């Protein structure tokens, strides 16, 4: 299983029936492919849609129906559309139960940087700052390292997305939470040892006695 699949499948285990969930671009989008059977989850695209469905069949594209990445999608029965002020009211007002975003760095207290690399990449924060500040639960989906360097760091070098700590970081190696403001290892990926995670992580991690393997659910066809 590749890194993205591990991350997406693990995060899908966080879904609960009736949740309103916002998925960022990239790995987070994949989470929608692994919704556990029997759950009804609402997916929001922050450009103004709840009930985002998969990409349409050939010949059935509607250019006015896109996700937050600008990709043409479909709408599930019972979908709702709305303007951007309402969309961010849902986000800022805590109506989004969970948001899944990519990350560049997460510090030892759970603070996320994910919107710019000064001098290199200035894409802008888009909706990320509102999502991290406002969603009930913030989950970061990212590879554990970039170019061999840990993305879970003692202190963020990059500009923060929010001072609010995230709730969970899921990588292809580990699941990390931040109880009492300290990065804590909860789970390891199948075949990964605690020592592997510690070796790959810059930030000091509290290791719980009950570190266990990630639940990945059963694969559901996309």
């Amino acid at each position, binding site marked *: 299983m590749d890194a993205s699949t591990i991350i997406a499948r693990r995060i899908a285990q966080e879904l609960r029936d009736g949740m309103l969930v916002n998925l960022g671009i990239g790995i987070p989008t994949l989470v929608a492919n692994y919704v556990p059977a029997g759950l009804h989850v609402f997916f929001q*695209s*922050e*450009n*103004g*849609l709840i009930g985002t469905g998969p990409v349409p069949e050939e010949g059935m594209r*509607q*250019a*006015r*129906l*896109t*996700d*937050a*990445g*600008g990709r043409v999608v479909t*709408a599930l029965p019972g979908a709702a*559309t*709305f*303007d*951007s*002020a309402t969309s*961010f009211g849902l*986000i*800022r007002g805590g109506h989004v139960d969970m948001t899944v975003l990519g990350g560049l760095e997460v510090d030892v207290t759970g603070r996320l940087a994910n919107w710019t690399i000064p001098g290199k990449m*200035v*894409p*802008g*924060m*888009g*909706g*990320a*700052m*509102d999502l991290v*500040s*406002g969603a009930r639960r913030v989950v970061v989906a990212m590879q554990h390292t970039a170019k061999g360097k840990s993305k879970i760091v003692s202190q963020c070098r990059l*500009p*923060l*997305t*929010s*001072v609010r700590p995230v709730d969970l970081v899921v990588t292809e190696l580990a699941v990390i939470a931040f109880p009492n403001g300290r990065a804590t290892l909860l789970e390891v990926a199948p075949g990964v040892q605690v020592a592997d995670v510690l070796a790959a992580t810059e930030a000091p991690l509290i290791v719980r006695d009950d570190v266990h393997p990630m639940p990945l659910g059963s694969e559901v066809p996309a």
Partner: protein
Amino acid sequence: MKTIGLGEAASLIPDGASVMIGGFMGVGTPERVIDELVRRGTGNLTVIANDTAMPGVGIGKLIRAGLVRRAIVSHIGLNPETQQQMIAGKTDVELVPQGTLIERIRAGGFGLGGVLTATGVGTVVEKGKATITLDGKTYLVERPLRADFALVSAFAADYLGNLQYALTARNFNPVIAMAADVVIVDAEHIVPTGVIAPDHVMTPAPLVDYLVAH
């Protein structure tokens, strides 16, 4: 509301104007009006919009033509041309969190002096802004945004100017239609008055100044 030709509509907008433009990655952007601005070379614009779309698409056409002096947007990630112009100092780019951006535009249109938001507190977004602490929680005081013109893309407009948007092409459009001195609408369909039911009107007619003729 007055119905006017495309050329006349674009001619209302002078060099140096501030312009709010609907759309999210080009979806829900009035392409015809943009094309006409590019044809005329209306420059030195301040653009307030969610993003600058992609190179050669929607607002990306204005960027490519070098017509944008200043952009107040939430991201420019999919348009490297905007990034290049920013780095070259040709275009000032003010990045605003998307939820704050739309709320500032709404405040401008809804007659509010501003809104208080926790988004951006403790980040670079806070720089230069007043903060206020209420009941132990700190907020940024985010000020209203208004523009000289709003360029709105609608799915349908009736003869009076009532507007309806479709699916995710709605995005910023109904909000900017409240926040500009002059509102110019390009609608995909023009329909007789009464065809849009009162409950389905998303922008009421009195907000619309000009409808671009078909």
